[in-house]
């Protein structure tokens, strides 16, 4: 394996470099059987093949040279890169509110990784300020890096840690909290924080970016400004996700942590409130609430942090022809809770019934949600639904499947008494179940329809 001196190189390329004593960052002239190249030897991605040496030409371009064609390497010097945004101390203004930025990772704070050639989360939140100085116009910002992980690697340990950190900050008296988070599972974390941190007196704003901050067109800077403004100035004391409204750089949306979902793999405007409307719009200029039933900011510190979480919970995404062994294997592996994402109003096929019966007998909490995402579970409409309730499956109203998973884990963390679990599950804590779905809670515009096209041509997407 290569050491740092030959970072990322292996096999033929490594032995060629070693032959000529050419470490990475060497300024070299490489002679090959085809021609000569002048430039700096760069580290190589570990996943790339062992056959090529990468150099940065004087023009700034990188190219790969086949190691087996290299005849000579002449070393002229060395120029190591220091990829670092100048870290500046955040200016303090006693008249401005204090906001805490907790970093967990994600593309809002990322940089190039020579090991994999991909983007890794590595900027300390402090460095973020170096690249978005506008933040100083809004608040006094303190930052703390809790974790540096991709969001798919967030888990109970990180959720608990983040909830506890939030509790500490509220105790210290900050006016708002921003949490930098990878976008993939931001809505999962938003949901669990909505349960683990209750009765917060201040805004708790989750933020990330869909285009990493190493790109000029990144949404990171604007998302950060929006989220920090929300934390500092808004009167919304809830767990929210703050991400782009449209794909244009115009405004962000504040989504309730239990009703939000990432709906596109790459769009900037990927987060959407499902089955309801967002709490507010936010721009660099102002925060505009679009509903008024949110929890208001308070002056006390009476936050409740409750981080109990049962990890033996699973989501089962039902598909036609599912075999009961899927459920059986969860039962046999001592799972304590299952959230089913059923079809339509909340159904699974008959062959699963015996397995569901087993689950009931073993005292496993089974809840039904809908894979349509929009709409309520309604198990009375068809016989099959009634049969399943007989088997102990509890309809989860309009809880999103991921939210149902988080809540069941949290509820089972509180108690093993399934009746009490049921009480917890069916009593809304943070808007995860709503009494009614407003008519504008389900709007997926269909492109191509004349009136929709007219709308799109009038407003920036």
């Amino acid at each position, binding site marked *: 394996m290569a050491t740092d001196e030959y970072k990322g190189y292996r096999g033929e390329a490594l032995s060629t470099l070693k032959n000529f004593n050419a470490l990475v960052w060497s300024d070299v002239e490489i002679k090959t059987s085809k021609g000569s190249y002048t430039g700096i030897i760069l580290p190589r991605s570990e996943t790339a093949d062992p056959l090529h040496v990468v150099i940065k030409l004087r*023009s700034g371009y990188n190219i790969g040279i086949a190691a087996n064609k290299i005849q000579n390497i002449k070393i002229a010097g060395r120029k190591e890169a220091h990829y670092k945004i100048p870290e500046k101390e955040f200016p303090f203004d006693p008249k401005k509110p204090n906001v805490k930025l907790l970093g967990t990772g994600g593309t809002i704070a990322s940089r190039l990784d020579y090991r994999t050639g991909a983007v890794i989360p590595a900027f300390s939140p402090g460095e973020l300020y170096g690249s978005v100085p506008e933040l100083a116009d809004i608040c006094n910002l303190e930052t703390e890096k809790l974790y540096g992980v991709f969001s798919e690697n967030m888990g109970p340990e990180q959720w608990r840690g983040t909830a506890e950190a939030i509790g500490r900050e509220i105790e210290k008296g900050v006016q708002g909290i921003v949490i930098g988070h990878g976008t993939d599972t931001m809505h999962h974390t938003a949901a669990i924080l909505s349960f683990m941190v209750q009765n917060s007196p201040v805004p708790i704003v989750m933020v990330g970016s869909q285009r990493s901050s*190493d790109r000029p067109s990144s949404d990171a800077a604007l998302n950060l400004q929006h989220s920090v403004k929300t934390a500092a100035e808004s009167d919304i004391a809830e767990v929210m996700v703050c991400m782009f409204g449209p794909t244009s750089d115009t405004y962000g949306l504040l989504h309730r942590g239990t009703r939000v979902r990432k709906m596109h793999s790459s769009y900037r405007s990927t987060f959407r409130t499902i089955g309801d409307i967002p709490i507010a719009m936010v721009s660099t200029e102002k925060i505009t609430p679009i509903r008024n039933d949110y929890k208001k900011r308070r002056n006390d510190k009476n936050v409740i942090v409750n981080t109990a979480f049962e990890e033996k919970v699973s989501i089962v995404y039902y598909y036609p022809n599912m075999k009961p062994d899927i459920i059986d294997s969860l039962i046999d592996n001592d799972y304590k809770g299952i959230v089913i994402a059923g079809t339509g109003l909340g159904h699974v096929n008959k062959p699963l019934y015996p397995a569901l019966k087993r689950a009931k007998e073993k005292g496993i909490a089974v809840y039904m949600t809908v894979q349509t995402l929009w709409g309520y579970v309604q198990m009375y409409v068809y016989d099959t639904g009634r049969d399943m309730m007989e088997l102990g499956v509890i309809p989860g109203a309009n809880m999103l499947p991921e939210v149902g998973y988080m809540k069941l884990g949290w509820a089972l963390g509180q108690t093993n008494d399934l009746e009490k679990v049921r009480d917890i599950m069916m009593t809304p804590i943070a808007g995860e179940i709503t009494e009614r779905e407003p008519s504008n809670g389900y709007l997926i515009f269909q492109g191509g329809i004349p009136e929709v096209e007219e709308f799109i041509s009038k407003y920036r997407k």
Partner: protein
Amino acid sequence: MHKFIFKPFDEMTEKDYAMVGFKSGLEIHQQLLTEKKLFCRCPAGRYSDKYDAEILRHMRPTLSELGEYDGTALMEFKTKKEIIYRIKRETVCTYEMDDTPPFQIDEHALDSALAIGMLYGCTMVDEVHIARKQYLDGSIPTGFQRTAIVGVDGKIPYKNREIKIIQLSIEEDACREVSDIGHRRVYITDRLGMPLIETVTGPDMRTPIEVAEVAQICRRLVRSTGRVRTGIGAGREDVNVSVTGGTRIEIKGVPRIVSIPLLTYNEAMRQWNLLRLREELKRRGITEKSFKSKTENVTKILRKTRYQPIQNAIEQGMKINCVLLQGYKGLLRWQTQTDTYFSREISDRVRVVACLTTLPNIIHSDSSGDTIAASEWQNIKKQIGGKDDDTLVLVWGDEQDANTGAQEIVIRAKEATIGIPSETRQAFRDGTNGFERILPGPDRMYPDTDLPPKRIEDEKLEKLCLTLPNRIWENEKWYRKLKIPPNVIEPLAASKYTKLFEMLVKNSKLNPTFVAVALIQYQKRLKTYFPKAKQIEIETFEEIFEAFKSGIISREGIFLAMKSFLESGKLRFAKKIKSTELTKVIKDSKIATKKMKIQNEEKKTEILIGLIMNKVRGKIDGKLVADKIGFSGKGKR
């Protein structure tokens, strides 16, 4: 040192250019002929000013791979522009909008770039690395252009020397600018993402004419592969110019090669005159160190001015800043290019960086034209404490822009004491050029983390090599030897038919002139009937010539076959006529001529032939008809 004074363009000699040390190189952008765009599957080459939707973005500078900010990036950030992209569903998908990561590179485009690289004799890279080249002007929604080097170190022969090809890269094309007013720039995105190659030559051209000639050679060379697009905007040149003691200046986006000579002449003159300006400043004792300036708000003094632009500005509540440039008297009238003065260098900067796009955006006390009243200049001079050998420059706008404007005036004026700032400049129609942005450096390059490096196997290159035409200069030499008409030599050598020509002449032993005329001239003639028709494909020509060789059609039938193909898109051959049928046609025609009143007996035969040919054209060789009726053919045919 810089005693030489530039003469008018027509009077400049090679010696004059040698005297100023004229040096120029080219960056030639040429779109590739592909069905799809480079990194997504949108259709290529569909342009329209119509659009369905708009999106709005801003750009922020980011660090380069080596951890540095690029100067251009910082300048663009200073301008704080709002960028609007106009989008049409048919030609733009979520990739161009920067809402979807790139797809794998288009293989056809890559093959074409590799093939052309080999044609230039480049050393081809073994592994292609896609880079992000930052463009913060917004011309690409991602803020960077995806680009990769495929070959380095090629050359083309020119006169009795070689022009170096430094590198050849494949990249995605940018948006077209619609407007740039104030803090808002609008782009249309139809061209965005089109595959193109950029060929960079060495700074090896010594006169403006040479630059254009080399551009022509390169243009024709790439066209000869049949792998590139033609037409307006498909090929664009950036021209780099420097003179002794000057700086490499890049003139961007020259759409026509014929405008290169005047542009490069003017740029050489500009640099030379700026160097002379530096000498003049030095003579006056003004250097980078001793340079002094002062800026003051003079809005109050000009409250009642009758100079319209400032009067309007004051009505709109704008701020007027005055910049005093100590010892600069008269120098804003220093000539830089043809009918262009140093004041324009300053005005350009203010326009681009402070976004004060309505002209005039500055006035100055060296101006001979109408500006504010003399008494107002006096009052300003008094307030700011100016002396007789100073120059005053006014700039106006809202507070922030007026301040940025004043800063830029100072920056540009001071740069005159140092030399020629590194800039990219835009070409104007009158042959002069204007400031576009600070010249970006290698610091704006960043590896594209969205796509892995791509290995180029030797076998792939070998295969592609087989598809290459001979180099145009080699073909031209051969054509001259074959004595084909001079006006066909160059177009044929640059066409995609060179291999076909070679095959028809060498293998099928057809007459070279006849083949060349059919391939080039016939098509040119038909172009007047069918201006929108695409070039006839090689395969179609193969079929036509095959029909000719096997006697299905005559020489004339070739033209008719091409015509009918362009008309209907299908090949239809007029059947060759049998000799008994011909005899009948001749007989009928003879009867017809006899009925006519023809006074000139000599014309009689010609008219007869005309009648006959009308019926048998393309079905039989005209010469056979003439033989049959005993016409010697002293006329045209």
